[in-house]
């Protein structure tokens, strides 16, 4: 059955839909967690530490976090590989362009591929910046995420990269969530408006929630 799914274009779409929904679920929780920064360094750092102790004593220190990381990496890889292979197929299927060009589909729909690439690159930078600290502006302090976040968003490029990526995310989710529902056969004529509205609300909340942090640092609300 695994082969049937992976060999079919519909199967790869299913993989994209499921992996996309896993990432979306994570992002909602991630965004809500980020907002703790507005309650000060004590709350935020305590929350960051708690993330490492989830599941204790059944799980060892940081195990839950590593399980989440493994699932997320698997989802990102599955999503990207199927996107790449499906895009290759799509481009091959339409080798000759029309001479008379017309703007087609909405902005969110047209930017899915580029938006996805931007998000992929962003994830790499984001981890090197705030998880490993490799490209962190100055003096990354493990265990002090509050200060690290403020450091990142005190640089112009930190804000620029982050806000660009979050806007790309909003657009990606807007078309992606609704598309995933169609791919999984959950859409219907009667449910279409509700699904589109859910996609819009999710996209808007995620964008606003994530952008709130750099804006908070820039305006001095978080310091």
């Amino acid at each position, binding site marked *: 059955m695994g082969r049937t799914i992976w060999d079919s274009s519909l199967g790869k779409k299913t993989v994209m839909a499921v992996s996309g929904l896993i990432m979306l679920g994570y992002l909602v929780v991630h965004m809500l967690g980020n907002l703790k920064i507005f309650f000060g360094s004590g709350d935020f750092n305590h929350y960051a530490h708690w993330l490492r102790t989830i599941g204790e004593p059944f799980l060892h220190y940081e195990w839950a976090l590593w399980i989440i990381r493994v699932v997320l990496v698997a989802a990102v890889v599955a999503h990207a590989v199927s996107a790449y292979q499906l895009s290759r197929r799509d481009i091959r299927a339409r080798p000759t362009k029309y001479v008379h060009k017309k703007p087609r589909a909405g902005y969110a729909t047209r930017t899915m591929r580029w938006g996805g690439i931007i998000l992929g690159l962003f994830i790499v930078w984001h981890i090197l910046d705030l998880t490993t600290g490799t490209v962190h502006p100055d003096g990354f302090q493990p265990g002090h995420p509050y200060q690290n976040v403020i450091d990142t968003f005190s640089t112009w490029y930190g804000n620029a990269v982050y806000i660009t990526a979050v806007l790309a995310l909003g657009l990606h989710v807007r078309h992606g969530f609704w598309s995933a529902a169609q791919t999984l*056969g959950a859409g219907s004529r009667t449910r279409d408006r509700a699904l589109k509205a859910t996609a819009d609300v999710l996209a808007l909340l995620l964008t606003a929630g994530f952008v709130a942090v750099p804006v908070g640092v820039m305006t001095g609300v978080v310091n």
Partner: protein
Amino acid sequence: MKLTLRVWRQRNTGAPGAMSTYEVDGISADMSFLEMLDTLNEELILKGEDPVAFDHDCREGICGACSLVINGDAHGPERTTSCQLHMRSFSDGDTIDVEPWRAAAFPVVKDLVVDRSAFDRIIQSGGYITAPTGAAPEAHATPVPKPDADFAFEHAECIGCGACVAACPNGSAMLFTSAKINHLNVLPQGAPERETRVLDMVAQMDEEGFGGCTLTGECATACPKGIPLVSITSMNKEWLRATRKAGKR
């Protein structure tokens, strides 16, 4: 009215093609788009030039033969077939671009004619029912609930013209394939092959080199028969169901 036409001319599948410009005069607003092309061709023949090749058959919007991309829209600006598009949709002095369906799976045969036998092979892979042929059976022998009959009929309206493929930026045949699958899968007559039909037709669709669906909705906008985008969702549902069942066997 007087029009400038820019038409795709290509001698055969292998030859390179290009847009050629023609002037046509004396076009009535009541002519169909194909009658306008007939007028151009009569002039070309009188001048000893090669007439523009284009597909057409019934000229009443039910056969699915005509296949023109007019000003970048499959079947032109109205939601109908090219043969049912009338010149009143254009104005005197307009420049109109006429191109063939563009898709790797639909190679150009000549000028505006493309080879759509990929669709035939998708149908051959499962777009039928295994029923004994002969005299028509008594209509009420197999009861079909009204909503199912309506759903089947809505999809049976597909004339297989390929406008969906032509309009799709990915050259995807999902709308066509979904219309054919949904039409038969909802009916009791189509039930024995419900799973194999969707699995085989989708596999053949991939095999022919059509692209995948990115839900742009261009296909449903171009469809002269109004097959809705949600048909693709229904097909995805059928495919997932059949894949699950096949896995259990």
